[in-house]
């Protein structure tokens, strides 16, 4: 909190997780799930009119559950998804102590690049009135800003619903500087689920269990250890070796990511291509896939070599970047954007 009582916040509204970093030093992360009790009984059990985050996922059977930016977009015309964005944002702001005094909150919200392109207006409407002033930016831009990676760099932000690519060439990124793939964490989950199901048809497991396994043990290339998980078979907890399935599923990311990286690189002015290749930043959950950075560097070797830097704090790198933007934006700009 600044001396004038204004709270600045950077928010990363992600497809899988959303985080907030505030100027009062607080940082929080929640799963991007919002659920409304399905009936009176559910409302009585949950004692809430809306449930957010992990609690929503855990109680999904009693809820009308929404992941508002599931494919990197608010579903067009979906009032529930717009309401879910609003609830999620409200929840995040409350976590940093910013409830009820919205005139004093200035927030920068990073969203998937595709949402920026397709439904920025819906997002702004959904967030209207929650803060005193609000700016919406694409997530890769927030990451680049927070890391001072604004010139001759490429951000590859592999999230759950989308993989966003953005070349920073010293200007605010336009459509030509960005790409979005829907091959991302969720697609890996689906693939992993399918592969395990094929190999162990008798085992019982859910997509949520598969997601947790992936988050713990994802890798490409050579395995460090065998990936062993536990799932019930005939009611009995059983150890399954899913090493090969994990590798195969995670490596499905490589072809589209490499192809898109090359495509964007080829559009950079020739004299700067080498500098961009040496400054590639891998963020988002994709940064947690062991071996992905080196695998991309191996691919870059075919075009003259390059360096891929994996961000150390993928959970908060976007919201920290948003906070940096919020703190740097001049007072006059915030006043122009006051709601």
């Amino acid at each position, binding site marked *: 909190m600044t001396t004038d009582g204004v709270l600045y916040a950077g928010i990363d509204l992600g497809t899988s997780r959303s985080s907030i970093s505030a100027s009062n030093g607080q940082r929080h992360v929640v799963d991007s799930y919002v659920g409304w009790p399905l009936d009176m009984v559910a409302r009585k059990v949950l004692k809430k009119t809306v449930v957010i985050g992990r609690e929503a996922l855990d109680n999904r059977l009693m809820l009308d559950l929404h992941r508002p930016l599931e494919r990197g977009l608010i579903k*067009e015309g979906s009032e529930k998804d717009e309401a879910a964005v609003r609830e999620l944002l409200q929840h995040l702001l409350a976590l940093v102590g910013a409830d009820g005094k919205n005139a004093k909150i200035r927030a920068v919200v990073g969203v998937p690049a595709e949402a920026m392109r397709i439904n920025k207006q819906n997002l702004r409407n959904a967030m209207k009135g929650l803060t005193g002033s609000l*700016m919406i930016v694409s997530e890769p831009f927030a990451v680049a800003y927070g890391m001072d990676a*604004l010139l001759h760099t490429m951000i590859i932000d592999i999230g759950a619903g989308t993989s966003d690519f953005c070349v920073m060439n010293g*200007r605010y990124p336009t459509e030509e500087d960005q790409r979005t793939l829907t091959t991302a964490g969720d697609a890996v989950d689906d693939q992993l689920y399918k592969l395990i199901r094929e190999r162990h048809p008798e085992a019982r497991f859910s997509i949520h269990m598969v997601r947790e396994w992936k988050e713990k043990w994802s890798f490409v290339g050579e395995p460090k250890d065998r990936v062993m998980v536990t799932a019930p078979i005939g009611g009995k907890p059983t150890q399954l070796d899913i090493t090969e399935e994990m590798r195969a599923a995670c490596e499905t990311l490589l072809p589209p990511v490499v192809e898109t990286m090359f495509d964007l690189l080829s559009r950079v002015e020739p004299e700067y291509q080498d500098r961009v290749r040496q*400054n590639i*930043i891998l963020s988002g959950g994709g940064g947690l896939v062991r071996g992905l950075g080196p695998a991309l560097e191996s691919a870059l070797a075919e075009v003259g070599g390059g360096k891929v830097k994996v961000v*150390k704090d993928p959970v908060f790198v976007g919201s920290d970047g948003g906070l940096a933007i919020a703190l740097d934006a001049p007072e006059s*700009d915030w006043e122009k954007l006051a709601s």
Partner: protein
Amino acid sequence: MAQKIAAPPLDARRLKSRLLREMVRENLSTAAGGPPAALRRGRHRWRNLALGVGLSVLTVSQLASSRVQTASPERVAAAIVAATEPVPPAPAAGAADAERFARPTPIDPAVFPLAVRRVVLDPGHGGDNGGTRSPGGTLVEKALTLDIAERLRRLLEQGQFQVVMTRESDQSVALTQRTELANSAAGDIFVSVHLNWIVSRQSHGVETYFLGPTQDPELTRLAAEENRDSGYSLADLRRLLDGVYASVRESQSRRLAESVEHELFRALHPVSPDLEDRGVKSAPFVVLIGTRMPAILAEVSCLSNAEEARLLRQDEYRQLIAIALYKGIRTYAQAASHADQKGT
């Protein structure tokens, strides 16, 4: 805290300050209800271009100038919409329908290379409108079209296309809603998936339609059947038809249809040796009339034929159909993209 990489060789503060100004400008524009700055610039340029086409003052060589060549696909598509939607003529008492349906002056389609980014998939029928059924009645068109479209969607998304579906479940969606959705989603192409029903149950084949007039009574019957629940009035249809036969969209639709038909037959014939290549045809289906982008309606199989019905029960066959559709779309998209690159 955020990691920092090596500081860029520019005055970082000035750079940040400029980026922040651009960011604020875009946010202010959105707050005021305007489109993103990049699109605003594009719209202005293309309004001028479309105006130029309308006035017939631009020659083909002028149109091939850098303005066209460097435009994004969306802008090209926007230009085509503008160029192919003439202002409806003032109603004239007794004006001959033939005159109102007169074909606009052809424009060389090569001037408008259409890069393809967003595909609108339309699984035919749904909800109360089941479509056709297999001879035994156990297979219903609406379920099969949705299944094939979902498979195609996954393939397209893996191939880096964006996909918009007109329906994602067993629901009734009026034809007008389908076309409105496609137009509002700014799709680059529209692909409607259907299954045929042929009176002679021995016959079976694949055929692909693009928008155009037809003299064939069988096609008239088929179009009437498919258009039954369109929700359009005759006046609506006339208004739509005034703009739709412009050569650019028709030509692109025909190319897309040819590409899809070729791949469908090539993929399915080895599995179903008696399959006929019924070819590419033009017909006035409402979903083709109302959409403002290159649009086709693919009859990917034939439910009236017992052998086809047997094959359609198999996941592998439906996947084969989806792959063939994907290849057809991809081939068309690559050709459009190459045309685009040649122009640059």
